[in-house]
């Protein structure tokens, strides 16, 4: 199993509620700010986009790259974080 960061574990352990996008794994201050500017100010909005893309990894990664300029590692972290959250709570 690949190692996951503390941020990932914290996010996946409980319902996201009103957490900001910065709480997502792979999304830090800079990327979070960019997402907020685009209107994705809460983690659940990014979740919405993830679900609309049918949880497809490639499309979500591409969307993330286009929207906030995330690199490959950040894309992967965010994707796996959201996917695992969905597995547990959706």
């Amino acid at each position, binding site marked *: 199993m690949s190692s996951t960061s503390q941020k990932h574990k914290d996010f996946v352990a*409980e319902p996201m509620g009103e957490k900001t996008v910065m709480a997502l794994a792979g999304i830090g201050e800079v990327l979070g700010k960019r997402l907020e500017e685009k209107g994705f100010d809460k983690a659940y909005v990014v979740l919405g986009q993830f679900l609309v893309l049918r949880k497809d990894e490639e499309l979500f990664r591409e969307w993330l790259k286009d929207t906030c300029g995330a690199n490959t590692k950040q894309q992967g972290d965010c994707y796996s974080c959201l996917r695992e959250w969905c597995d547990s709570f959706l």
Partner: protein
Amino acid sequence: MPVFVEDPALFSKERLKSELMAHNVDLPPPESKKHAYVELYLKHVRTNTTDFSSDEEEDHLGGSAEKEEKAKMVDLGLLTDDQLKAKLLQYGVKAGPIVASTRALYEKKLKRLMDSSAQASQHRVNGTRDAGLYSDNEEEDGREEDEDKESSESEQLRSDTIARTETSKTASRGKIQHKSSDATQNESLSQSGSPYRSFSITQMVEEIETRFSPQSKQTEIERRSGSRSKQTVDSRVLRDFMRLDKDTMTGRSLCLTSPSSHQKLTVTEPVTDVLSEMFPDTARTPTGIYATKRRPIKGAAGRPVQFKYPEMPLLSPTSLERQEIQQRLVPLWVQIVVFLLVVCMLYLIYASMEEPLSNTFTDLLEDLQEAALIFTSED
């Protein structure tokens, strides 16, 4: 009068007019600015030019290919959501809802699929051509063959899209423009809407993107700025960008990294792997090892149940049931008391009846009573 300079913007308006008339192109209204003439000139004259010997092949082929690429771009933009979905399904891609935020992504994906399936050889040929700038006869033939295939495909697309409505086109254009105004880095979206694309360079960029995925953001930005500037300028500066591309190619080859698993994710080839068809949702790992889903462990280290789930009761469901049962035991006594009361009432009712019920037992009793009376009366 021989013209050595390629730049039609340097032509006089009169010259542009005469050129357009010579090529049987409709003139724009006479009050229009020179740049309208320039655009028309570029669109029509450049694609049919045979005057410039040294650049003939590149311009001719680049122009016609550009026109076809333009047609494809326009087609994708004209497709309605359902048609886009259907086209994706043709390539085996089950698309999700096509909404404002997802449309651009799906258009890009479709374009990539169309490119990769029909023009695999084109990629190779264009790559060597642009890199070398030295035209070979063999390359030329290969290019022409591929363009015949391309032209037949785009004709098909064009016939399909003849019936498209204006509203969908303007809607998609509007969406695309809105998006491109939002993000400066989002020229991938504007790529799908822009009609003037130099196909070879952008295809090369994609090819390079898929093959050598740079890990640093800087090279991404460099690439993006390079590709962005490529689209906004039209084909008259094609050569300049080819030169630029040569530079960036050499630059990029220095920072070349080994193809990573990213390649597998960005290259959209028709899926032939059975396992990935069976389990489309699992993430592809470089080692091929798939991890199982992990459920959060309640009460494990750092996640004591009371703090994580404060709303839930602390007792387990079985103890809750026991409590409920205990609660039910109390009214049970009440039920027994009520039952006894009812029994007493029934007995009293029976006892107070005037005519006793007659049955064999009462008859026997009566007989015994009579016998007893007789005994006592005899004494």
